[in-house]
């Protein structure tokens, strides 16, 4: 089920009714939420609920046996069991076809012709998200950062809680399990603020990402016969920068709003990322729950910055390459991650080289613009389906295409550029504040008027119920 669907509206109304029904105990309400979460997941592909159960049960018992283990060897064995089961499922469903394809290519390059049967495996929705969420449970217990959950119901609800289940924010057990231990009940202010956030998220997804930005991106990136020029290539890539932000941040904002209505707090996942100055700043603002997950469970175990410069750069590149692969089973995603790794490494080197440099306001704005432009280069590899089409767009951006043809009409181009400029300007202006702080300084009439316009725009856009881009990850 997706948030921008009519089915979800009915589902959410029922969940709210059950959650606030006076005749259920807190224990029963948690069971209701668990069942609702399974229904939420099954609404897309019922058999894949089994994967959720496997992940839940294996990690629950792995953590239980880890704390009962008398030796470090046994503890490690249970941790490895959890890793093998979770990453095994992820590997089979998400990377099986990719691995097979590469194996066939390598075999062919040494003269071995191997034609395997087609890898016709459907990717379970959100498998990367819940795999990372549930892995953080066993890893935290193994690393003695937290104790195992006291109740299987609380733990199972942490894994499946529908607002974060299929596209994050990637929650840690320590963030959510304690919230299930005591009855949660949002007051009217929380519920209405949650609904306002849900409206904002749906506006970003339905109106901006799907309605106005996606067609501009498709006009260039999905065009196979015509060659884009400089203007079209840049505008389509800027539009994709806006689309991917509105799509994913829209999902996170909706998820936070939905959870808030039920009385639960979820962490920020985006903090005005296009207002970043530099790439370490970008990754503190973009998909925060993934970048911090990769930092805590990959970068730091790989050595982090504790073993000298060389090792730090290796850890950085390794983390970003795997981070790229997490997004999709394709070498284009690996290059996307690799580029970010290179950017981060270069920034780290420059910061060490120019320690005394203190930028003024104009320099900061210039660096933010430079960061935004360089991030856009990486988006080309994220969006293009092949290196060939990425090359076509990059060549277009560099103005090197011979006889390019106009692909984006003036009207959609003007609207897309206006939206992306607005996003960039808002992010730059709000980089040192929060949405809540700005709302608190804004007159209620203006907020109510804005809320009205956003909701009205969502209604008249109607939407086609298209899935969020990150569902595929």
């Amino acid at each position, binding site marked *: 089920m997706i948030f921008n669907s009519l089915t979800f509206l009915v589902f959410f109304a029922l969940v709210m009714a059950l959650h606030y029904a006076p005749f259920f105990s807190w224990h029963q309400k948690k069971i209701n939420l668990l069942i609702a979460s399974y229904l939420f997941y099954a609404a897309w592909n019922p058999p894949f609920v089994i994967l959720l159960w496997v992940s839940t049960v294996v990690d629950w018992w792995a953590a239980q046996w880890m704390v009962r283990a008398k030796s470090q060897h046994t503890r490690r064995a249970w941790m490895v069991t959890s890793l093998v089961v979770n990453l095994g499922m992820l590997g089979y469903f998400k990377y099986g076809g990719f691995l097979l394809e590469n194996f066939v290519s390598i075999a062919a390059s040494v003269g071995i012709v191997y034609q395997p049967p087609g890898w016709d495996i459907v990717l379970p929705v959100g498998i990367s998200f819940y795999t990372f969420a549930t892995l953080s449970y066993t890893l935290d217990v193994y690393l003695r950062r937290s104790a195992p959950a006291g109740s299987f119901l609380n733990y199972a609800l942490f894994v499946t809680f529908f607002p974060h289940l299929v596209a994050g924010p990637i929650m840690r057990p320590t963030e959510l399990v304690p919230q299930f231990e005591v009855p949660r009940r949002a007051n009217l202010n929380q519920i209405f*603020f949650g609904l306002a956030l849900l409206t904002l998220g749906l506006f970003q997804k339905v109106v901006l990402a799907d309605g106005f930005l996606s067609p501009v991106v498709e006009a260039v990136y999905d065009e196979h016969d015509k060659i884009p020029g400089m203007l079209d290539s840049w505008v389509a890539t800027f539009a994709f920068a806006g689309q991917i932000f509105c799509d994913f941040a829209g999902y996170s904002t909706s998820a936070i709003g939905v959870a808030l209505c039920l009385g639960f707090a979820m962490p920020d996942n985006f903090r005005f990322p296009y207002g970043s100055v530099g790439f370490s700043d970008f990754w503190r603002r973009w998909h925060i729950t993934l970048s911090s997950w990769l930092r805590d469970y990959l970068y730091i175990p790989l050595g982090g910055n504790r073993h000298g410069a060389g090792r730090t750069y290796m850890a950085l590149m390794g983390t970003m390459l795997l981070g790229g692969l997490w997004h999709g089973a394709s070498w284009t995603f690996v290059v996307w991650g690799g580029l970010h790794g290179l950017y981060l490494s270069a920034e780290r080197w420059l910061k060490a080289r120019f320690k005394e440099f203190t930028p003024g306001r104009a320099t900061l704005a210039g660096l933010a613009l430079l960061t935004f432009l360089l991030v856009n280069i990486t988006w080309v590899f994220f969006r293009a389906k092949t290196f060939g089409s990425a090359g076509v767009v990059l060549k277009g951006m560099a103005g090197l295409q011979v006889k390019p043809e106009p692909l984006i009409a003036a009207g959609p181009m003007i609207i897309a550029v206006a939206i992306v400029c607005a996003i960039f300007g808002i992010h730059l202006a709000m980089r040192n504040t929060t949405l809540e702080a700005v709302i608190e300084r804004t007159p209620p009439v203006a907020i109510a008027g804005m809320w009205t316009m956003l909701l009205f725009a969502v209604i008249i856009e109607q939407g086609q119920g298209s899935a969020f881009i990150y569902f595929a990850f």
Partner: protein
Amino acid sequence: MRLGALPAGLRETAANRPGQAQPVPTRDIPLRPWVKMGTFAFFAVMLLTAAWEWNARANIGLRTGDLDDSPQAWAEARRAADDAQVAIVGDSRILFDTDQARFEALTGVRPIQVAHVGTDARALLEHFANDPQFHGLLIVGMADTMYFGMPAIGLGGTAIHNYSKSDKPSQLTGMWIDRWLQKHLAFMDSDYRLSRWAPRFDNGWRKGADSPYEDVWKLAEVSPGRQYVMWSRIETDSYLQAHARHAWNGFKGPPIPASVADKVIARSAEAVRRIRARGGEVIFIRPPSAQQLRVNEQRRITKALGWDRLLVGANANGIHADELAQAQMLVLPEWSHLSGKCATVFTDAYVRRLVQLTPRLKLRPDAPPLLSRSDCVSH
């Protein structure tokens, strides 16, 4: 949860807490009168939506009960076609030009409409040929240039590709709720979504790029069973009619080489053979197009080179609009599809011919009387 937002920039995230268990997150609720603001927004949205609905009915001419077609609706029809006695595939012409109720009144059989706008009927024919479950009569409606102009598979190919992914429980419930809403709200029409309607101010500002003005706008009203009928405003509004004609660009294009047509015919023949081998039957239909389009269609592929050779090559029966006496000079408001009333006349004509070509259908003893051009053309 904390009442009131923290001072700017002070809310920490996981980015500020490396290598540790993350605590329960903090969410700040800004100190604002949320209930009053929400209530205001609710009623204001209700008011605006009511005004939008009024505008849709009074000014745009949309009506309740006009169901959008959708990938889920096509997939639903496709699933139903597996056990159907008669299924129709093809492009938008057979979709608009078949009146299912008339078909049923004449034969007692309601066909399952599986045709798709913007497609090449061959792709759908081959899709049915690959489906061992289908044993019925398959009517293949075609526009010559779309059918023979390989590899123009178009939107039907996308529908086929997404077919197995269009039966998720949430998609089905979404479709049911959407249909229920469309029975009561006229503005819920995908052709008048904000993002489709807003960019229409651009009527070709950038030369060479396809502007929203070049798109095909709303042409049809859709009833249950994917019954397409020409939208009445296309028949009466000169601006919309002129735009629709413009969008077809006269069906112009380079001539289709005989070698390409040969390949299409060979693939069609194979598809027909496979359907027949398991007890099914295929009959081709070529609905009419206006002279303004026909002349260009003929330039690209003549009837002799395309249609006639297809029937011979596939050893199949066919009904060409040219051969139906009572279906001549019908009204095609935007040159490519028949008006609602004339679609009934055309259906009447082709079904009466159809029952002569196949024993699978019979004219009912109480079938309504023959229709003619005068039943749909006012003098």
